[in-house]
Structure formats: structure tokens, C-alpha cells
């Protein structure tokens, strides 16, 4: 195993004519160029607009300083949004990864016809968010949906699913987990394949239990893949938008009004570009902190094969 930092200590003499600074920049140039145009420029503009009231065209019109920020931090709606966002992340990320891992372990068995099951498990990958959301909308429909039909068959009382503030966020989370499972499954299965089968065989000879193998061999060796999936899931979860737009529109009573949807509504429906910008800046700062923490914590725990 090689620690990621190894190369940091090595100093390679620059023997080439080109200074490494210039060469490094050459490799980075395409990305830097695009980032500047399509990310930094809009972001700076967003920061700039967050201090203004804007006209219909979204141009800055009246300087209001930090008013948008103070309004947001004081408003209950913003706090509800933050809470909904955090809860949504909490509902979707761990459950989604555990489900995908379970399916991947299941599909990693050497059985006849396993290819069929693998295809099925990864099939949600091909479903777009828009299409999946519509299907789930039908399933959640309290009148005709399969959700309540099933509840009835099992003798349980009907649920309001998307219509009650208590269950709406969880319902959206369930559909989101389903949508993301295909991709996570596929990646985790790939990760499992990469684990040296000799390790399992020696484990078998030593006579350890399946669970022990999972905990001591599989999971540690899978950790780079897991870090990848955790990061992707976190980003996706924070940016969830499509399903909310179709399933709940942020309701009922703003219980699913996650911050990204709130930004969308302010920017694209209410045309409060200023307020939307301020929310975007706050979200940016917030995710930045979470990500830094995650990397700090995550990188230490990841094992490289």
C-alpha cells in the first residue's frame, strides 16, 4: 500500500527546459479557462448581485448591502429550508449507500444468470430524474397509487405520502434513493471486483465467518470506492432539485423546500435574483465547510490497495 503523500517528499530535479510552473499551468489551462468563464464569473456575479435588488432582467438596480443576508438569517422559511436540506441528506445518503452495498454484495456472488440481476439492479441508472419522478408521483397518489394499495393489502391505514408535511420529505427521499441506487450499485460492484480473490480464499482457509470477511477485508479494501460514492451522493443530495419540482414543489408547508429548490424558486419563478443569490452564496459557504471536513476525515480513513 502506498500512502498518498509519498510523492510530496520526493523532489525531482527539473531537468527539462520548461519550468514546471509553466508546464503545470499548461495542463491546467483548459480547465482553468472554462472554470473562469463558466463558474467563477457567474459565481462572482452572484456574490455581487446578492447585495442588490434586481430589475426584471436580473440587472442590479438598488444597493441594499447585507439586507438579503440578514433577511434570510432571520426568516423561518430559510431555517426550514436548511433543516429540510440536512434531513434530506441524512435520509438519502447513508440509506442509499447501504442499500447499494447490499445489492452489490448480493450480485457479487458467482451464480448462474447473475448478469440478469446485475442489469436489473443497475437499471435505474438509465432513468432520468424527470421520468422517474413522474412514475413515483403515480405510486404516491393517495387515490390510485400503488403505495396505498399495498398499505391496504397489508391491512395498514392509508398514508398521505407527499401530502402530509410529516411524510413528504421521507417519500421524496425514498424515490431519490431508488433513482441513485443503480449508479452506486454499479460502482460498488466494480469496486468489489477489484478486490483480490486470494484474500477471500485465505480467509476461507482460516475459517472466518462471512461477516468477519466483510468487516476486515471487504470494507477496508472497498474504502476508496466508498469515499467516491459518499462524495457523489452528498453532492447529489445537496443539489436535489428535479424530483422536488415534480413531486412536491417544495410543499406541503415548505417541508420539502430544500435550499436548492428555494434558490430555484426565487431565481426562476419569483425573479428575486438578489435573494436567490444570497442563498446561493450561503449554500456555497456551507457545502464548502462540509466538504473540507469530509476530506479531512475521509482521506485519513481510506486505504489504498
Amino acid at each position, binding site marked *: 500500500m502506498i500512502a498518498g503523500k509519498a510523492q510530496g517528499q520526493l523532489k525531482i530535479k527539473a531537468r527539462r527546459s520548461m519550468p514546471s510552473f509553466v508546464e503545470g499551468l499548461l495542463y491546467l489551462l483548459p480547465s482553468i479557462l472554462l*472554470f473562469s468563464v463558466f463558474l467563477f464569473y457567474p459565481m462572482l456575479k452572484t456574490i455581487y448581485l446578492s447585495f442588490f435588488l434586481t430589475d426584471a432582467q436580473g440587472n442590479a438596480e438598488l444597493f441594499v448591502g447585507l439586507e438579503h443576508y440578514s433577511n434570510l438569517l432571520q426568516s423561518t422559511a430559510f431555517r426550514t429550508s436548511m433543516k429540510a436540506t440536512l434531513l434530506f441528506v441524512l435520509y438519502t445518503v447513508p440509506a442509499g449507500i447501504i442499500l447499494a452495498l447490499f445489492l452489490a454484495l448480493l450480485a457479487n456472488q458467482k451464480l448462474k444468470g447473475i448478469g440478469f*440481476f446485475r442489469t436489473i439492479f443497475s437499471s435505474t441508472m438509465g432513468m*432520468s430524474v424527470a421520468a422517474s419522478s413522474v412514475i413515483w408521483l403515480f405510486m404516491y397518489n393517495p387515490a390510485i397509487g400503488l403505495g396505498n394499495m399495498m398499505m391496504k393489502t397489508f391491512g395498514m391505514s392509508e398514508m398521505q405520502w407527499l401530502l402530509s408535511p410529516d411524510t413528504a420529505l421521507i417519500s421524496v427521499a425514498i424515490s431519490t434513493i431508488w433513482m441513485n441506487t443503480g449508479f452506486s450499485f454499479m460502482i460498488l460492484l466494480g469496486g468489489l471486483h477489484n478486490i483480490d480473490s486470494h484474500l477471500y480464499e485465505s480467509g476461507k482457509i482460516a475459517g472466518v465467518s462471512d461477516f468477519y470477511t466483510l468487516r476486515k477485508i471487504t470494507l477496508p479494501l472497498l474504502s476508496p470506492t466508498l469515499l467516491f460514492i459518499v462524495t457523489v451522493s452528498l453532492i447529489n443530495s445537496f443539489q436535489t432539485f428535479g424530483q422536488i419540482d415534480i413531486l412536491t414543489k417544495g410543499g406541503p408547508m415548505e417541508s420539502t423546500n430544500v435550499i436548492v429548490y428555494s434558490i430555484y424558486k426565487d431565481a426562476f419563478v419569483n425573479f428575486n435574483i438578489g435573494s436567490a443569490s444570497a442563498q446561493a452564496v450561503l449554500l456555497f459557504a456551507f457545502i464548502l465547510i462540509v466538504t473540507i471536513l469530509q476530506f479531512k476525515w475521509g482521506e485519513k480513513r481510506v486505504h489504498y490497495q
Partner: protein
Amino acid sequence: MSIWKKSFLYMLLSVAAFIMFFPILYAFLISFMQGGEVLQGKIIPSDFSFTNYESAVQKVPLLRYLWNSFVVSTLIMVGQVLFCCLAAFAFTFIQFKGRNVLFLIFISTMMIPWEATMVPNFQTVRALGWTDTYLGLSVPFFAMAFGTFLLRQQFKTIPMEMYEATQVAGVNRFQFLFKVVLPVSKTSLVTLAIYCFLSAWNMYLWPLLVTNDERMRTVQIGLKQMQSQELATEWGVVMAGVVMVILPTLILLFLGQKRLQEGLTRGAVK
């Protein structure tokens, strides 16, 4: 493996497969329903005819849209993987001043919410004259911090001794990237490629903004185009569209399953 364990596994697999596949199956069933059948809460359509499929194709130029989505997604995939490779390579194998700061800046772009960038970027693309072109649809997404980060993680697992050895052998950096680094990073590259392709395939608002011409529009717009506002939507037709959109992906997944897994395994660093 004992027969008991085997049958238990098969049972588990079947149950899981049924649950996972059910929503897609449901969409498939709806795609055959006529008129009010969907809203009356039926599950099994009264008859399996392909009229919905016919009208889905007639309503929007779905094949053209599929082609566009395919082209755009492929372009974005190739562009992203290429740009990310270059950037990640620089961040791993080239020592230069300010590298860490630059990396941090790169990473921070990951957190910029897309809503904030959409409208200014549309103005930029318009100023460049890229509306209604594949360029406008794909180029803004070529650079991705997340991909750079992922590949950097992967590249860091490559022993530095390997790099030094090639240096001694007189191989230049660029060759090192293509001859050594990329082949051993196949897994990550494929993973990243799939991720890029899928995110691109799912785009809706951006393609809607930068295209006016029907010949340049993508599948997700097509699906939205089939749904009415205020009037009752013909869900059978929409679902027929959905099924047609996912069918190619499903077939690809099934056929590619084995090869993809093999590829993933072969590319692994041992």
C-alpha cells in the same frame, strides 16, 4: 455452495430485483394504457397495442432528440475525462508553486450551485454565438472539479518510483501520462465516464435555454414536451416516450455488463 444457500440467494436476488425494477415495470405497463385508464388507477392495461408509441414518435422528433442527447452526452464525457485527466495529472506529478492553492480553488468550484451559473452562462454562450450548437450544449461542462479530484485520488496510488524510472528512461511527462498513468487508471476513468454521461443525459434546463431549434434539442426536453399543463396529460404517451428513452440504456447495460465488469477488473491496480 450448498443448495440451501444457493436458493436463499436466488430468492433474495429475485425479491430485490422485483422491488428495484417495479417502478420501471409500472412505467412499461402505463405506456400501453389508453386515455383515462391511468387516472382510474388501473395497473394492467386493457390491451397491449402500440398506438401510444406511434403517437409519441409523431408528437416529438424523439429519434432526433435521442441522437442529440447521445452526441452531447458523449462530447461532454470525452471532454470532461480529457480535461480532468490533464488537470489531475498536473496536480499529482508536477511540482510547482501555488499548486495546493490552485487545487483548493478547483475543489471549491464543486460547491457552486448550478442555479447561480445558469443565466450568466446562457448570456456568455449567446455572446459567443453558440446557441443551437453542440458546442454551446457541451463545452461549459468540460471542466469538472469533481472529476479532477477523483482522478487525482487515483493517480496518487501510482508509485512515484514508476514515474522516476520513466524519467530516467527519458520518457517525457506527456508520454508517461498516456503510456503509464491512464492504462492503470482504467477503473476510475470508466467510472468517471459513466458518471459524466449520465449527468449529461439528464440535463434539462440548460439544453432548453441554449436551443431554439427543434433539431438541436435533447430527450429530456422531449419528455417534458409531451406533458400538458392545465389539460390532462396523456400519460400513456409520455410513458411510451420514457420507455423508448431508457430501452437503449438498458440494452447497453445488459450487453455491456460482462465486458464492463471485465474491463473494470483488468484495469485495476494490483
